[in-house]
């Protein structure tokens, strides 16, 4: 991983791709933080709605939303919509056990 100092390298998938691309001008885009921040707090700073995140990737590993992000990390926000077997095979399901921000079955009107 390249040393990007305090900059995070951030991506968004599915509908977050066009949302973040419009908002920040490119994909990926870079965002500076001075100290560790939780995934949830970062998503709020970026204007991403909570219902639009099932899991986050940090440096290629799947984490729950509350996981702490360090300066220099590579981040991707993934909304609900990844096909089912891969949600299990890639560990989305396991990372969301007992997590209050867990996505189970959530439609806009129910969230």
């Amino acid at each position, binding site marked *: 991983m390249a040393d990007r100092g305090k900059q995070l390298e951030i991506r968004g998938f599915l509908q977050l791709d066009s949302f973040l691309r419009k908002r920040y001008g490119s994909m990926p885009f870079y965002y500076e933080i001075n100290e560790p921040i939780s995934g949830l707090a970062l998503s709020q700073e970026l204007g991403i709605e909570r219902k639009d995140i099932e899991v986050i990737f940090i440096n290629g590993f799947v984490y729950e939303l509350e996981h702490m992000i360090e300066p220099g990390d590579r981040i991707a926000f993934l909304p609900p*919509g990844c096909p089912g*077997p891969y949600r299990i095979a890639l560990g989305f399901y396991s990372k969301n056990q007992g997590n209050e921000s867990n996505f189970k079955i959530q439609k806009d009107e129910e969230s």
Partner: protein
Amino acid sequence: MMKFIRVDMTTLSSTTTDVPEKYAGLGGRALTSNFVNDEVKASCHPLGRNNKLIIAPGLLSGTSAPNSGRISVGAKSPLTGTIKESNSGGSSSQMLAKMGIKALVIEGMPKGDKFYIIKVAMDGVTIEEAPEKILNGCGNYDAIKILNEKYGDHVGMALAGPAGEYRMPSANISFKDPDGNMRSAGRGGLGAVLGSKKVKGIVIDPTGAGNVPIADPEAFQAASKVFAKALLDHPVAGQGLAAYGTDVLVNILNEAGGLPAHNFTAGRIDHNDNISGETMNATISERGGEGKVSHGCHKGCIIRCSQWYADKQGKYITSGFEYETIWGLGADAGIKSLDAIAYIDRAMDDVGVDSIETAVAVATAMEGGLIPWGDGEAVLKIVKGIAKGEPLSRIIAGGTAIVGKVCGLYRVPVVKDQGIPAYDPRAVKGIGLTYATTTMGADHTAGYCISGNILKVGADLDPLKKDGQIEYARAMQIGTAAVDSTGMCLFVYFGIADNPAGYQALIDMINAQYGISLTSADVDELGKSVLKVELEFNRKAGFTNLDDRLPEFMEYEPIAPHNVVWDFTPEEIDEVMKF
């Protein structure tokens, strides 16, 4: 009583009987695999006269059940030498079911070089010489048009493309879809089996067919409604597949480090943005014209993961533009233009080859120096050359294992000679166990379905660790074998994985249609029974546990970015199929 049709190509005759009692309760893969195990000599040459090809709709095909239009094709595979079930969308499954046809078997082979069309109609089966103009290199797109003119737009079709005529191990069977394009029973070379029997195509004329009988229509409708709601309520249908297609997985697998690249030497690429589902969606939307972001491959599909991908002028190039194809050409072979990949996809459909096998073979050929890395134009020319039987094209259509041998390579990503698709086993270990142990050769769709206990297993699953993966791969394969027997698209499981009511509704629909009382345990038993007959066939064909292994290079070549190797022991792998 449903009908069981046998076409004997040796005598150019057919017989129609009641369904043998043993097969009465079976459909789809359960039927094709039981039949192949019962009637095909396991040691036969797949292209010889003793192989038999069986085509069967699923248990729910022809009903109003959403997404129930898949058709199964079974035979001994020329690619793998194993038993094979390959299934497809299109219109044929629903037509056959409504015509009361449980299965169509093609056996024997005629003398001479003539190719034939088998026409199946309500008043019987006829075998006619194939029109000259659809032979000798005519692509599937034109062949469908010509046959539409001859038999009418309303007919269903299954075709052996030029690759099938040449009996290439990667030849698919192309099924006409509701728009006159095609869907493929792609894997395992079953188009070559059709071609070996000198069958250019099967035309299905449903004129006069009625509705599929339902024992309890009210209960069926109620269950169907619950099932449809379970699919549509889930974000995978509403937000994922309908908008981005299966190509939504490019970015996800790339981020996870499990996107095999440059012939399986890396797990991540930098040009993912060129080929992602998000880019495909944006491109189709911007170009307009004939392009469609979402499209169903058969009547009654409510997930609509397919799309029509159009060129810069808005003219249709291809449909059903799948993740695995785009991965193979875009990441594994390094072709960075989605348009270039789309034209190759169209050409593969046109000549009738499996797009996964061909893409993996292409990347292997690139490593072997036969094709420059990332050269989409060269690949397009080679794929088109399959229609003319050109030498390099034939080598590629021979499949990945043959290309690896021709090029003198050790890094040949196959299991049982079938190319490994789009998920690197080193970084997504559960899928690796399925690749190793499935009866079909490396096949991601062999382990797709979430059965009852998988969520418990999944609670602890980490893609890079061994824990729980054996149980995961076993349960997924059992569940898939059962669903492959229903005629349901496997993608329904993307939606009902989280929803027990949806899973129960699937079982309730089968019960209501046939007036039976299956439980989820029975469905699991069905899946196990299918796997057992497939394993039995493979053992009779000479396969042992030693064939259930991933390519050795994966044990000593770590894959970036996670730098992991394949580390399951033979003993651990062999646990998967113990049930």
